[in-house]
């Protein structure tokens, strides 16, 4: 049992809009142990990317605490954020838009090293870039190439090399494989897994693809409309999902086995607008098991069995 490297407490991010407050992330609490992976799962607009960005202070949280390695990240002043960047990095979703098209591979990977003055000697920087390219499986002949000359898989490898360049302890992986083809997806996932073992990394793995997190994460947290609605160790969540939304989400995945037809739970409608939400269960308007009480107040996240939290008072343990 390692200790928590990251603790997120009541993290909240509201965006003011002309129509009212947009609840992007609302009172989200979780923690990640050193060397482990937490999968943050949800559909578009549920606030998973905003959560990731608030943790890194790429966005300023409205309220709440993010404690990383004992320090509260939200209290750091602008200048101190540089120090944070050495410890926490991010891999972005789209390898086509997250790399500067006018920089060479070498330039992209070495930029964080130069900005943070990690290595001063040009020659040593070169050596480090070579080393990083080797770690992520990029041939060193590509060092002078530009991103547009490379395919999606290779570009994402550049993104990974850039994130690793400062020797971080913690990486937010924001949908790192969703823009890639399946055969390439598996290559990148394997690489991230190997790197985690070698470098003792901790990941927050943000994705909409439950089959990817199942393979990748130790724990899973499910978000819906800015709220964390269920959290459990991966196996437990897949074997015994409790929240009606998690159940529907799991049953919606098309499975590759043609003999195993599973019962599909279809949920009504689509995610409503996150602006000016009433104080009721966020999922109530679409829930198949909805009762009057669900509209009275927001359910709390409660521990129903060891390490298994769910925000639905009517969810039953089988």
């Amino acid at each position: 049992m390692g200790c928590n490297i990251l603790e997120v407490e009541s993290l909240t991010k509201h965006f003011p809009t002309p129509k009212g407050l947009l609840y992007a992330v609302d009172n989200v609490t979780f923690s990640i142990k050193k060397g482990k992976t937490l999968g943050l799962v949800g559909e578009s607009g549920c606030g998973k990317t905003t959560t990731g960005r608030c943790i890194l202070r790429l966005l300023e949280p409205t309220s709440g605490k993010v404690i990383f390695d004992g320090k509260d990240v939200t209290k750091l002043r602008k200048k101190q954020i540089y120090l944070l960047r050495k410890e926490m990095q991010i891999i972005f979703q789209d390898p086509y838009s997250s790399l500067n098209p006018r920089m060479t591979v070498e330039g992209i990977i070495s930029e964080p090293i130069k900005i943070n003055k990690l290595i001063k000697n040009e020659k040593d920087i070169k050596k480090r870039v070579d080393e990083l390219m080797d770690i992520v499986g990029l041939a060193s002949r590509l060092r002078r190439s530009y991103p547009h000359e490379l395919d999606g898989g290779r570009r994402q490898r550049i993104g990974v090399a850039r994130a690793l360049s400062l020797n971080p302890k913690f990486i937010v992986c924001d949908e790192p494989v969703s823009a890639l083809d399946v055969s390439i997806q598996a290559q990148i996932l394997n690489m991230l897994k190997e790197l985690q073992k070698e470098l003792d990394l901790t990941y927050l793995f943000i994705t909409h693809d439950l089959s990817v997190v199942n393979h990748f994460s130790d724990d899973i947290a499910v978000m819906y409309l800015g709220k964390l609605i269920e959290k459990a160790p991966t196996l437990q969540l897949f074997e015994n999902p409790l929240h009606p939304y998690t159940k529907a989400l799991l049953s919606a995945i098309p499975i590759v086995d043609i003999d195993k037809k599973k019962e599909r739970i279809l949920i009504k409608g689509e995610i409503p607008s996150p602006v000016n939400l009433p104080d009721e269960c966020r999922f109530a308007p679409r829930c198949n098991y909805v009762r009057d009480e669900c509209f009275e107040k927001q359910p709390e996240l409660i521990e129903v069995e060891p390490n298994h939290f769910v925000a639905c008072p009517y969810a039953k343990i089988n």
Partner: protein
Amino acid sequence: MHRSNSEIILDMKNLVVDYETDDGIVHAVNGMNIKLNRKQSLGIVGETGAGKTTTALSILRLIPDPPGVIKNGEIFLEGEDILLYPEAKMRKLRGSYVSMIFQDPMTSLNPVLTVGEQISEVIRVHRKADSEDVIRKAKEMLEVVGIKSDRYNDFPYQFSGGMKQRIVIAMALACYPKLLIADEPTTALDVTIQAQILEVMKDLKEKFDTSLILITHDLGVVAEICDIVSVVYAGSIIEHGTLRDIFKSTKHPYTEGLFNSLPNINARAEFLKPIPGSMPDPTQVYTGCAFYERCKYAVDKCNAVKPPKIWLNDTHYVVCHKYDDIELTQKEVENNGM
């Protein structure tokens, strides 16, 4: 209609499509053969750049020209080669006999027309009906895909992604096409919405007696909705068979690699088994097998000689040297079966 008796809806023979660009000739489709019967649904599976979309656009003759050129082949829709049709005749076919659903519902609707007008337009162009009838029919189609008909006068921006895709489906089916081509219809949608759309498509396919070509990279979606599957790599089919042939007795190393790359929701393995390397450069011409460089079973012959099409049973064929040895006996099976 005079051609409604035939059981074969689509017969594509040896289609070759090139894109002639400044950087060289891109061989997008290299000898594609597709045969589709009435009410059948075919899944075309492959990765980015495999030529899936180009194949689909060819059936509608919508390849952007230039740079796209159909170099060779015939496409028979119920017995007539549409590549010989004049453009005016082709226009009559699109939307009435063959329809297409595009990948991104956000960009395939006209933002300045109401959704009702867009569905009505299809009907007005293809059917002789007075305007009241057209509107009634369009409203009926909205209801069919699960949208209340009082939203007839709403604009696309007032709908969410899943709803927009339903509207696109309503447009595509408004004239009861014999063949519906869906190009990654659920890729841009969330899983729970994808599940809804797949249900709608399954229901309507039955209801309207439509044949379906579903283009996707997602083997899970194929398992859900298709009867037969073609796996494409570098512009041609490398394995084809019934759903069971492909999923239960996978033969081609590429198909095998695709299945192994998928994170399986039921069996949790620590590491996945990816296919090494990446998609080949489409400007390259191969003397042998296009998958040679990434194939773990490759032998010298694979690089030198084009692999033959080998029938394993009446429905299942594979294009790979690995099965050369059983060619003889299987050929006999094929001859007997014919």
